[in-house]
C-alpha cells in the first residue's frame, strides 16, 4: 500500500483488518513478543527480576488455616473462665429476657468475627487501615 492510502485507513477499517482470519499469524509470534516483555522487565529491574519473589499474601492466610487453631483456643479460654470465675449467676429470672440477652451477645460475636475476617482477608498492602511503614 502507498503511504497516502494507509493514512486514509480509518480506525474501523484497521480493526476489521486486525480481525481478518484470512491473514495467518506466524507461529511463535506471541512468544517473540513475550521475549520483548521479558527483556523490558529485565531492562527495567535488572537481573534481580529473576529472583523468586514471594507473592503478597493475606496477613493471616486463608481463614480456614487459622480458624482451626482459634476454635480450641476459644474453648480453652471459656473453660478457664468457667473454672476460675466460679459459677455464672443468672442475670434475669425471666426466660424471654434471658433469650434476648443471649441473642444480642451472639449477634455481637458475629459482627466482631465478620469485622475481623474482613480486616485479615485484605492483603496488608491494600488495607487502608494499616499504615505503610
Amino acid at each position, binding site marked *: 500500500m502507498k503511504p497516502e492510502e494507509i493514512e486514509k485507513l480509518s480506525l474501523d477499517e484497521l480493526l476489521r483488518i486486525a480481525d481478518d482470519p484470512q491473514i495467518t499469524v506466524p507461529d511463535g*509470534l506471541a512468544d517473540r*513478543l513475550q521475549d520483548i516483555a521479558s527483556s523490558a522487565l529485565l531492562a527495567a529491574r535488572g537481573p534481580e527480576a529473576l529472583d523468586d519473589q514471594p507473592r503478597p499474601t493475606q496477613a493471616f492466610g486463608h481463614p480456614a488455616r487459622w480458624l482451626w487453631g482459634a476454635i480450641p483456643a476459644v474453648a480453652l479460654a471459656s473453660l478457664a473462665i468457667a473454672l476460675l470465675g466460679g459459677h455464672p449467676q443468672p442475670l434475669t429470672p425471666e426466660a424471654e429476657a434471658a433469650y434476648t440477652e443471649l441473642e444480642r451477645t451472639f449477634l455481637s460475636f458475629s459482627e466482631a468475627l465478620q469485622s475481623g475476617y474482613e480486616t485479615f482477608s485484605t492483603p496488608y498492602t491494600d488495607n487502608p487501615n494499616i499504615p505503610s511503614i
Partner: protein
Amino acid sequence: MTPEEFISLYLPLGDGLYRVAYRVLGSRQEAEDAVQDLYIKLWVDLDSLDSIRNPQAWSMTLLRNLCIDRIRARGDRHPAVTLAEDLPDEGPPPSSERLEKTLAAVRALPAKSRELLRLHLVEGLSYQEIAQLTGQSELALRVAFHRLKNKLKSQI
C-alpha cells in the same frame, strides 16, 4: 502504567497488530519487525500510557505511522546520507538502547531459557509453580535461574 498492566493490556493485541502490519506492508518479516518496533516504542513510553483510554486504538495509530515510515524508507535510495545530516547527536533514548541490548541478550539464549523467562517474568509464576508445570525439580530450576541471572548480568 506498571509493567504488569502493560503486559496484560498490550500483549494480547499482538496478533491483530501483525495482521494490520502485514496487510499494509505486504511482507511477513517486515510486518513482524514493525510490530516488534511498536512494542519497544510503547515500552519506552510506558509512563505516558496511563493517559491512554483505548490501548488498541492507540497501538493501531502508532503502528500505522511506523508502517508509513517503513514504506517511505524503502523509497529513500540514500537513507544513510540524507538521515545522517538530520539526526540529532544524542541518538536513541537510553531506555530504548538498554531495552534493545537486553532483547539481543535474551534472543541469544536457548529456547528453553527464554521459556523460563516468559513463565517467570511475563506469566508471573514462582519457581515452585514453574517446577510443577514443567515437571522439573525446584532445585534444578533454582540452579537454572541462578545461571541465567549470572549470564544476563554479564551481558546487560
